[in-house]
């Protein structure tokens, strides 16, 4: 908690933290690592490695806070909607609503600003940043049709695995509004078990496991589908680059076996718990992991 106070505090920021503290105080005392804190740590680490992105920083922090607020608002709305928690009385439902609108608007603005900043960073037009930051979209975005699915998943995972299991949750609009969750590697195995079971969504079919090398970290992406409910979900598990390790889900979905071997072979992610982790595409005595971004091939002309 002390780390949060180190940041320049803004009005909305402190409010958001108070809200989250109020709501999370009711749930069983959590480990000191909040998902938001972890994310901020990671983003601060990202900031340290990219000094050239300094002008974007304050905006980015603002956006992160707005995202946190949105999440908190969502959680509040959910808690209010379900009404199952005895410590969240209906009295909080009414005052949350106008605040919720405000937060949604702030989230939408943040999203727009984020998009503009991204376009600026890549398009290279310095003037665009400030111009588009000032604009706001006409109205807040309508909630995605698959939002209830995402919320359901969040609930399942939060109740059965733990509050800190899910780092990030969003709707991937590009991909047909697929619910996309980021799960922490420590809780991934338990989360996978939950997802497979009937009270977690019955995701019995693991369609695809991909490994992605973002230069700052590695990520393993799982695409799930439920043959029963026809729902889809994307789960990401992030891990660091020095000692990448994601628990293997081969005991849960047997199809992960060779997929994880391929990711180990080509990206170097270790999967503790895998029955037979060895190289699959490259020869057994190959050194290095070819799909990594910093891989130097033996033949430099290739």
């Amino acid at each position, binding site marked *: 908690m002390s780390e949060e106070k180190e940041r320049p505090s803004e009005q909305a920021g402190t409010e958001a933290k108070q809200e989250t503290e109020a709501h999370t105080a009711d749930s069983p005392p959590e480990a000191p690592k909040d998902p938001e804190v972890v994310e901020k740590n990671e983003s601060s680490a990202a900031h340290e490695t990219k000094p050239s992105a300094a002008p974007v920083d304050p905006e980015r922090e603002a956006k992160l806070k707005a995202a946190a607020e949105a999440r908190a608002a969502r959680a509040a709305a959910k808690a209010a909607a379900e009404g199952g928690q005895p410590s969240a009385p209906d009295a909080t439902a009414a005052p949350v609503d106008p605040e919720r609108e405000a937060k949604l608007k702030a989230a939408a603005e943040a999203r727009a600003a984020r998009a503009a900043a*991204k376009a600026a960073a*890549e398009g290279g037009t310095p003037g665009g940043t400030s111009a588009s930051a000032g604009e706001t979209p006409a109205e807040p975005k309508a909630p995605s049709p698959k939002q209830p699915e995402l919320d359901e998943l969040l609930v399942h995972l939060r109740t059965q695995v733990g509050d800190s299991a899910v780092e990030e949750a969003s709707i*991937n609009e*590009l*991909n*047909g509004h*697929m619910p996309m969750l980021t799960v922490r590697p420590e809780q991934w195995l338990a989360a996978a078990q939950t997802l497979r079971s009937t009270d977690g969504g019955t995701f*019995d*079919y*693991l*369609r*695809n496991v*991909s*490994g*992605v*090398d973002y230069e700052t970290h590695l990520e393993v*992406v799982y*695409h799930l589908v439920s*043959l029963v409910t*026809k729902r889809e979900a*994307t789960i990401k598990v992030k891990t660091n680059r020095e000692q990448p390790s994601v628990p293997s889900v081969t005991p849960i*979905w*047997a*199809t992960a*076996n*060779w*997929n994880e071997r*391929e990711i180990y072979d*080509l990206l170097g992610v270790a999967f503790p718990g895998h029955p037979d982790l060895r*190289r*699959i*595409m*490259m*020869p057994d005595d190959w050194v290095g992991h*070819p*799909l990594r971004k910093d891989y130097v091939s033996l033949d430099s002309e290739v």
Partner: protein
Amino acid sequence: MIRTEELLLNVGPQHPSTHGVFRIIVKLDGEVIIEATPVMGYLHRGTEKLAEDLSYTQIIPYTDRMDYVSAMTNNYVLVHAVETMMELAVPERAEYLRLVVMELQRIASHLVWWGTYLLDIGAMSPFLYAFRDRETIVNLFNELCGARLTYNYMRVGGVKWDASDAWLDKVRDFIPYMEKKLIEYDKLVSGNEIFLARIRGVGAYDAKTAIDYGLSGANLRCTGVDWDIRRAKPYSLYDRFDFDIPLGTNGDCYDRYLIRLEEIRQSLRILTQALQQFPSGGETMGKVPRVIRPPAGEVYVSIESPRGEIGCHIVSKGKQEPYRLKFRRPSFVNLQILPKLLVGETMTNLITILGGIDIVVGEVDC
């Protein structure tokens, strides 16, 4: 004292029945297999790594070469992924053309599988009949896009070449011809006692195993699980057509055989309907920006290729090249069940089971 030893035997990498460069290390106790370890990677060409330096249109020829027996569906999965990301609208004529070539490709691929499977089992003639009929389809493709095997036909937003009315008439003529041939093949092979004795009851597994191992295509549907992406998550124009999904009951090689033959019939049915609905004019390419730059984000789409579910996972940073491009290859995933199925089988059944899974090694290794 009789001492029995275990024999370690190598099937492949060069072997007429492994359908490509693929190796299985088999531990035998007499004639019975105790353990089988597939070794692959002989055909690994680094498509995914290469793709990180190429624009999306440049990657399309690489997709042809992954599952070279079924190149049109590979093309489609990539362009469909990019179009999903960019929310591009594909004109009607182009979409119909895509569907027609994909279904023709399905028939051609299943014919190759049928011919080579029977060749492995020992019957020499069906191989030649299958290839004779596949020649008709391949000639149609040759006329359409200039290539017989690796077509490079689809583009982001449409297709490259338009089809003339004469071409469409040739496809229309092909359909009753193929239906007649299928009846002939059924009479020749499907009722043959020796063939049935070789195939029935071999390599059986249940639905739970199939779902667990992520099998797709005929390998999943032979256990009775009704999951065909054309029906469950329709893409392209498949929701406009009326067709059945053949399902099996026992999960053995015979069911897979029957399902694939029936799928040819259903493809012919889809083709008939598609050709009836075919738009008379229209563009073959939609409104696509000159430089294809999908927005930042990631997407995963999958379609039903003749071998199963082929998927494409693109992570884009808003540039012309993908940041990460991963193909979910059905042969790679389907092959995982081979070591499990082979335990306790004889060497002869190894060939039968491996052929029944229907792999293309170009896809296994990518």
